[in-house]
């Protein structure tokens, strides 16, 4: 496929790996004193494991897996609310497939569907809007989930619903934003990071300037990266070169897709439909100021929180993590997935206990899928 295969060329990869090794040696990075690079985005985590990049790079480089998997950071209470909305017989509940298997307190959306709720997986929020057009007697609710990459798709869909005056469509908005949790991680005295590989498709929407605080206020380098193996390797090399040269800059490896100032149409639609919530709860990270979005009052007719009295429109519920689940510690880098007592016994992709095992972008699922057997053998 064009713009994909070229970025998987093994010959070029060998060249970049050799250059990474040279620069890592110049810096003096070793297995015991590694350079710690966080890939923020779950898509990057998945690609690193899928292509075994963590094993291919110089041993003095350690990948720390960031909080950039929206399914993984979703609190259980939100899943419970999805199930409640979906169990209303008037409702057709629509969602991306990623969210179907996340455990709730009572059940996942997949179990609710098996129990008879009308839950449909859709590829696009536009498909949910089409369902609303075709089923005017039903309430069609779309589960709005994801970072800035996905936020424009629901904003543009809500704008389309408003333009056409479709009254039976609403969005349960759980959109979140990337910069606030990065700031929270950088403020955590336990977190020792040397640099970041920045999210490519989030940056396609917001541009590169929202990260300026990372270099200016915290003196850390960040390189926005594409998703193919060569993109990731080149970005790691660019981070290392900055460290070697004593620079801390925001650089863009993914120039073929990411413009410096992002996508103006998408940004305008986000600003029109959404506003920041004062605070938002992240699984494993707790409450983070201004890290989530809600639908503006001018679009209240399309807000499932208002229509169904759930989420932040209802009294707050606190739901404890399941017994023995260490997702929070893994997500903040305090624990490797394999150090969790439940990894591979109480928690597998088929029977997940925690969210990090559910999504293909979760660190635990990536460890299990691409290294599970290897990891367990090594432990025995």
């Amino acid at each position, binding site marked *: *496929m*064009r*713009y*994909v295969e*070229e*970025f998987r*060329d093994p*010959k*070029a*990869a*060998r*060249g*970049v790996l*050799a*250059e990474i090794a040279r620069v890592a040696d110049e810096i003096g990075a070793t297995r015991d004193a590694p350079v710690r690079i966080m890939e923020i*985005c*779950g*898509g990057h985590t998945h690609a690193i494991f899928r292509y075994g990049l963590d094993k291919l790079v110089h041993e003095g480089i350690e990948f720390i897996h960031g909080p*950039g*998997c*929206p*399914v993984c950071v979703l609190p259980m209470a939100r899943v419970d609310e999805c199930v409640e909305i979906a169990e209303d017989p008037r409702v057709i509940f629509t969602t*991306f497939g*990623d969210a179907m298997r996340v455990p709730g307190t009572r059940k996942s959306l997949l179990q609710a569907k098996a129990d008879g709720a009308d839950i449909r997986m859709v*590829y*696009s*929020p*536009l*498909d949910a809007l089409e369902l609303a057009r075709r089923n005017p007697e039903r309430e069609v609710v779309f589960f709005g*989930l*994801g*970072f800035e*990459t*996905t936020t*424009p*798709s629901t904003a*543009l869909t809500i704008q389309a619903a408003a333009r056409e005056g479709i009254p039976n469509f609403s969005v349960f908005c759980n959109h979140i934003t990337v910069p606030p949790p990065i700031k929270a991680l950088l403020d955590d005295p336990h977190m020792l990071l040397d640099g970041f590989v920045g*999210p*490519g*498709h*989030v940056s*396609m*929407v917001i541009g590169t300037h929202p990260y300026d605080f990372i270099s200016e206020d915290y003196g850390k380098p960040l390189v926005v990266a594409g*998703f193919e193996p*060569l*993109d990731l390797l*080149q970005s790691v090399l660019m981070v290392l070169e900055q460290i070697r040269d004593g620079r801390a800059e925001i650089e863009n*490896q993914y*120039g*073929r*897709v*990411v*413009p410096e100032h992002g*996508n*103006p*149409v*998408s940004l305008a*639609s986000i600003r029109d439909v959404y506003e920041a919530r004062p605070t938002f709860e992240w699984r494993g990270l707790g409450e983070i100021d201004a890290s989530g979005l809600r639908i503006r009052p001018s679009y209240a007719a399309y807000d499932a929180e208002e229509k169904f009295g759930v989420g932040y429109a209802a009294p707050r519920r606190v739901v404890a993590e399941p017994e023995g689940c260490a997702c929070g510690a893994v997500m903040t880098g305090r624990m490797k997935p394999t150090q969790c007592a439940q990894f591979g016994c109480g928690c597998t992709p088929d029977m997940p206990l925690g969210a990090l095992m559910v*999504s293909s*972008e979760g660190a635990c699922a990536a460890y299990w899928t691409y290294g599970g057997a290897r990891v367990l053998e090594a432990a025995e």
Partner: protein
Amino acid sequence: MCLGIPGQIVRLTDEDRQMALADVSGVQREVSLAPVADRPLADLVGEWVLIHVGFAMALIDEKEAEETLEALRGLGEAQETLEQMAESAKSLEVTQ
């Protein structure tokens, strides 16, 4: 979740709603051009775009893609040359 896939715009299907048919690896599907509709829609036919959840989120910049690849291939070729040099050096040692 944030994954996108390159596709080529085949033709416009509904100009009012900014919809077009895109070809993604031989599979055709209708996508919204709204995010890239800050130019005449007709100009987008034949262009490569990054598609995410049914929206063409960005035009792929061919020149940027080529420049990135050039740099990467350069590193690959340099490494190959270095490996060949090392290989020759070894074979020379054997004959000596």
